[in-house]
């Protein structure tokens, strides 16, 4: 649905060149919620703004649903933009217009007849649960309600994709959750492709199917959210995950002196459970099957979008061959096993 190829954006200021995007390539499938996470200044905002050409890339191309956006004439770009909805961190609603008139705005721009447009607005307000606030002005709404208006407005022209520029960053956690639920609902209902950027790993965890981690103007890691959580490859990803899930275990636990009989070893491992495997008693059957002890140092279970997901940090003690076979047993059953004791 969205194909970003070798996108580079360089800002020229008086004193220097700032590289905001450095050879970024991405592919977003139709109907998926794709997240881009990065710290402020990493380039994610520039990236999403290049998708609808609010920012003109220095090099590279963006193709949306087969249309090369980067080379369109102004007239064609405007009609292409009508099919790309966008929501913003600060909502960007017109204070001079009521909720109803804000949502009808894109239809006005597209030249949709008034009557038809009015009907569409009513549908949309119903969808976002704001039918009773149609005559209110934005200043009379809460942040969450404003973003709902923003979403209704972005959907007015039945876009092919929805771009979300930090849409929940100005909202409290509870409101954030309700907005994310609304986005998931819309994604589900209309099979609408959503590309969102955020600095909050929770947003990725709650909503996204796939994620790209952007750091210092480059994409450093892309993959299914589950995979990034269970097996992050870069320090940037690990630190984002660490912000919301405690993966690390205190050094004290790791550095316990090993007073062991000969022929017995102790390993500390981290096991990640994903989906179905989270429901099976694999650890206990491993202990029964092999001659070893397992001591649980830390555990955590969570949900990534709709999939159960958890970490368990274990200390295994036993004969080297038994421990090794035990680890194989776990991996063989689809668990992600990672040694964290640096042996």
């Amino acid at each position, binding site marked *: 649905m969205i194909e970003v190829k070798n996108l580079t954006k360089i800002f020229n200021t008086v004193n220097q060149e700032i590289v905001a995007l450095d050879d970024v390539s991405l592919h977003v499938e139709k109907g998926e919620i794709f997240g881009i996470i990065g710290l402020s200044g990493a380039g994610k905002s520039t990236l999403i703004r290049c998708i*609808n050409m*609010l920012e003109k890339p220095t090099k590279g191309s963006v193709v949306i649903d087969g249309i090369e956006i980067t080379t369109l004439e102004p007239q064609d*770009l*405007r*009609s*292409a*933009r*009508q099919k*790309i909805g*966008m929501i*913003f961190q*600060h909502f*960007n*609603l*017109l*204070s*001079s*217009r009521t909720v109803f008139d804000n949502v009808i*705005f*894109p239809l*006005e*721009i*597209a030249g949709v007849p008034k009557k038809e447009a009015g009907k569409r607005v009513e549908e949309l307000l119903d969808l976002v649960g704001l039918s009773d606030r149609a005559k209110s*002005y*934005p*200043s*009379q709404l809460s942040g969450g309600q404003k973003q709902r208006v923003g979403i209704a*407005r972005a959907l007015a*022209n039945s876009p092919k994709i929805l*771009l979300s520029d930090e849409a929940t960053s100005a909202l409290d956690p509870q409101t954030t959750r309700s907005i994310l639920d609304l986005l998931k609902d819309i994604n589900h209902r209309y099979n609408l492709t959503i590309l969102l950027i955020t600095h909050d790993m929770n947003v990725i965890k709650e909503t996204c199917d796939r994620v790209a981690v952007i750091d210092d103007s480059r994409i450093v890691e892309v993959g299914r959210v589950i995979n990034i959580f269970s097996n992050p490859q870069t320090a940037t990803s690990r630190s984002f995950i660490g912000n919301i899930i405690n993966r690390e275990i205190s050094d004290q636990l790791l550095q316990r002196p090993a007073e062991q009989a000969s022929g017995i070893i102790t390993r500390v491992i981290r096991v990640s459970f994903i989906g179905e495997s989270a429901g099976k008693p694999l650890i206990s059957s491993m202990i029964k099957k092999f001659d070893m002890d397992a001591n649980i140092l830390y555990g955590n279970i969570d949900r990534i979008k709709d999939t159960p997901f958890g970490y368990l940090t274990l200390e295994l003690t036993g004969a080297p061959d038994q421990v090794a076979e035990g680890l194989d047993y776990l991996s063989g059953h689809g668990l992600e096993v990672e040694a964290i004791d640096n042996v």
Partner: protein
Amino acid sequence: MFDFGANAWMVDKVLIATWETIYMVAISTFLSYVVGLPLGIILVTTSEGHILENKRFNQVLGSIVNAVRSIPFIIFLILIIPLTRLIVGTSIGTIASIVPLTLAAIPFVARLVETSLKEIEWGLVEAALSMGANAWQVISKVLLPEAMPSLNLGVAITTINLVGYSAMAGIVGGGGLGTLAYYYGYQRYENGIMWITVIVLVVLVQLVQMLGDTLAAKISNRRR
């Protein structure tokens, strides 16, 4: 000091002069917006990074606006007498005053409009662009409606300025309260007329400011 009763003709004079001032100021304000409003819009939209960015053009236009604004009105008034004669056939009287008043107010209005429109959050413009709005739609549906309270106050400021300018025009025969004050108050030492003129001017300015404030507040309140 005030000796009204003895001078019923004076009341007539003041009334006529007041009407002339109102007339002259109202028409000049209107005409200065006819030109100044589009100029202000152009100044904003051709500036760097804006929807119709054109740096060279913007610089040239900005310099012209600044040049006209830097000429003191009393000098400007005399400077353009030939032009005034060309346009209305005379340089004396109420109608003739409208020419310098309007021309002097245009760059002022342009800058006021520019300031009002610059206050609009860029995010709103971007939102409209992201929906596929063209430049005209951004101007007519975002910039102007959003800036309406501030634009209203600008009209009040312009009008008040023009009341002051019109009095200056009066000194060189422009009609209105300025002429009255000058002929009677200054040349004939009739302090009464002078004071009445001042009072009428103060009242006029107060009324305009009140009207502007009320309108702006009304628009803002409706949106609150």
